């Protein structure tokens, strides 16, 4: 039953990290065992980073670290010290307008429950940065590390193609 431990928790060893998240510099003390996904969700209030499996299969927690897409559940916050991180929140502009990729997902009904969507949007962003007009096969390869359980992926192809068109020449 209820326990009464008057002694406070032993101060765990923490280290300070400094990261730039969505353009803002953040300095925080973290435990070495803190996952990057939990750091972003619970210490930086970026709950758009979704956690679906915590073992690197589903891709819902995908963010960009120094411009590359990374499954944030597989890394630790301390490993990100000095890095530049971008999450789905960072894609929305100052006036609250959606990024063309986000718009394209909306217009093509490429999300249902939406739990995988942050990860898909970030994976799509990396794909289109590397390849502005991917073929269907290239979309498959670019997004095969993300799982969507609702859409059957049909409209995700359309979203990526629509986003590629919107971003063309931008």
């Amino acid at each position: 039953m209820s326990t009464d431990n008057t002694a406070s928790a032993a101060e765990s060893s923490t280290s300070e990290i400094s990261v730039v998240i969505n353009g803002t510099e953040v300095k925080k003390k973290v435990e070495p065992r803190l996952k990057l996904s939990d750091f972003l969700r619970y210490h930086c209030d970026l709950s758009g980073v979704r956690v679906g499996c915590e073992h690197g299969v589903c891709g819902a927690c995908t963010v960009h670290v120094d411009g590359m897409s990374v499954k944030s559940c597989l890394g630790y916050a301390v490993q990100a010290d000095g890095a530049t991180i971008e999450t789905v929140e960072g894609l929305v502009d100052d006036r609250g307008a959606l990024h063309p990729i986000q718009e394209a997902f909306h217009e093509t009904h490429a999300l249902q429950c939406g739990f995988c969507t942050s990860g898909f949007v970030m994976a799509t962003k990396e794909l289109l940065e590397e390849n502005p007009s991917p073929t269907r096969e290239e979309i498959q390869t670019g997004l095969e590390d993300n799982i969507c359980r609702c859409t059957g992926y049909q409209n995700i192809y359309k979203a990526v193609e629509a986003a590629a068109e919107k971003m063309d020449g931008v």
Partner: protein
Amino acid sequence: MSISGVSKTERTPQAEDAPEEAESFTGQGLPRVEDHRILAGEAKYVHDLTPDDCLHLALVRSMHAHANIVDIDTSEAEAHPDCELVLTADDIQADYNPMPTGITEVQTEQGTGTLTEWSLAAERVRFVGEPVVAVAASNRYAAEDVADLVNVTYEPLEPVTDGMTARTDDTVIHESAGTNVVDHEHLRFGDVDDAFAEADHVVEGEYFWGRISGVPLETAGVLADYDADTDSFDIDCNIQLHTLVDDTIYDTLGYGPNDVRVNVPPDVGGSFGTKIAIHRYCCLAAMASQQLERPVKFEEDRIENLQGGDMHCSERNYRMRLAVDEDGTMRGLDVWFVDDFGAYPRYPVNQVLKPLSVVTNSYDIQDVSYEYELVLTNKTSQTAYRGFGVDPHIYALEMVVDKAARQLGLDPTEFRRRNLISDDDMPYTLASKNIYDSGDYARTLDRIEEIIRDERDGGLLDPETVKEKRAEGKYRGVQPSVIIEPGVSGSDWTDRQRSDRTALSERTRAEVQELPEHLRARLELDGTITAYLATDSSGQGHQTLVSQLLADELGVLPSDIEVDYLNSADAPTEYGSAASRMAVMLSGATVGVADALKKRVETIAADHWGVRPEDVAYRNGRVEQIEADAHLSLVDIAVFESDENGTPPAVSYNYDHPATEFEEFDDAFIEKLPVYPTAAFGANAPIVEVDIKTGEVEILVFHTIRDCGTMLNPMIVEGQAHGGIAQGIGAALMEEFGYDDDGQPQAITLFDYLLPSIKNVPNIEMEHTETPSPFTVTGAKGVGEGGMIDAPASIATSINAALEPLDVEEPADRIPVSPAHLRSKLRSLTR
């Protein structure tokens, strides 16, 4: 909508920007109102709710499938500086109740047995992953540290891991029940014995459907907050059907329904039926919160979810018998199966009965026997999953139909065609008393055959290509059938297993109690309207559906409408979003609540003018006097009413279940047989390619024709079909919760439980027809489960067709049709 754009339902994504051009919002692919907050990362799913003073729960789970608990030593855990609470079964038995089970009494020759399930295992563990101890600490990391310090001593027992042998096993996993077969029923319709005695042939097949589940990307989560001042609870969680199954929480806590407010956030990361049964977590977090008088949160992790999350679904062994005449007439059907429910029979026990709603699928057979045994084993418990037990039934039925065609030497498609229910017989009453509302099944089969002919003529099945591929060891094939999706379940039949079945024979229509769909609407002071749903959502777009329908009914813009949700205490008990109900129930309720709101504002306006209500009329967002040039806007009316009575006008409406309007359904209602008044239907032609060297199956393209009556939002309908088909592909080829002989689960990560990725789902080429339902307000039929119900059967029969030249005996006789299974079938051939 197919990828190549072959569809009669072109959507109009620009509708949002140009509403004035639209005659009506309903029937359009109006983009969803839910999307912006999700895409921007602003949506608050239950895992995102973490108040500052919140504590976190972690669970110690059994590593044994079956064992006595000898001792639980919590002293080290309690000594951990971060430990706030340790709960064991002893603690909760002192203050709380067992959780309700799906079957409370078990009839055996020895008498009446009982089944009890506590939120934490008491004295004995019955599956790997069963929670034994709950601990609370300041964060999840600390809580897991504390949980690691709990020492449980077990005395292992012989596990029961096979549903078939469990029936006669000496080990009974609940001694209080007296048997592992905790429910059994044999239903007979027509004259089955005669049909089987007289038919020219009886064809028999045995089929296995492996354990699968919905595995939504968001795991279960709960934030419970006990308030000592009012002695009541607020429970935020992602449970599905929160107004129906809230009793599993408040009964366990020992409180009344109004003292436990279950609230589901507007965004839930998928459920597909599975989250109906997450009440264990809700109860444990609530108990911890009450003990500590602080909010307590539990986030299930993925491994917990897969191995011990009470969320697996049907695991069935079927024996199907089909009585057929030489001319290809199906005379009778005999269904027998065993469903392995795992350690406890929970709420979804009625999924063994739902197949009765489509018992003969699209075939006209009136002599039917249906028998099941529901057994318990040392595995995690079952919950609901999209299709609710219909998917295995349709698979097994289509398999034996294939087998019968081949034994008769008939083309399997021609055999099916000869037995299809005719358009002239609609509405058609099944042997099992449910009714199919409308549909031309033969026309659907004709169209899918046309598509297949095109593939044979220069396409994927062109004889030259097929021959070349066979030389490489790759066998292509396809076998379609017309498959029904039962929609809009009634609620009354769903407690059949808890009813005295002998008393059912004396039941009258007056005793039938159906749950209506409840909806509220309030006019706001700025003239906008807020609607309140009594159901929860998990990605289906209910907010969009209600706003587009309500906009049409009231002649306003969808953007003038907000849609919010009621908690379980504020909402009446109702069924909610399951069983493909919402398109019909929610649209019926929306039309009703709009009428009620129009009447209400007309009355207010008439009173204001001092005229009779019949002298005024509501039109497009205002009330006008019919004979005079005067009108009042919705803002005016909201302000008048607010000045007068303190609040703007609000109305509610209860939409009765549509089947209650039709006497034709009375027999099914009275006998508590599944009532599903809409029959969506379709036919699939997945072109499969089997690599006989590896046993791998690739689906080259998935053709499908679907009909769900009037489409309220074609974009959402197509999305539901895409997703259902993808889940059907996973079920057919990839997913399975296997167990070893010791009862150890073999799929506890997503590396072992394989969810289809973008590489595993082929192009889905979809066409629609629209045959309105005569039984519903809008002509819509239930839709949402279809792909999961029909895709596995279509893939299995297509694999049979692909391997036909090799003369393999029923290659797809087990789901999933894994590479290992196909290789073993093919190896036996070469010996």
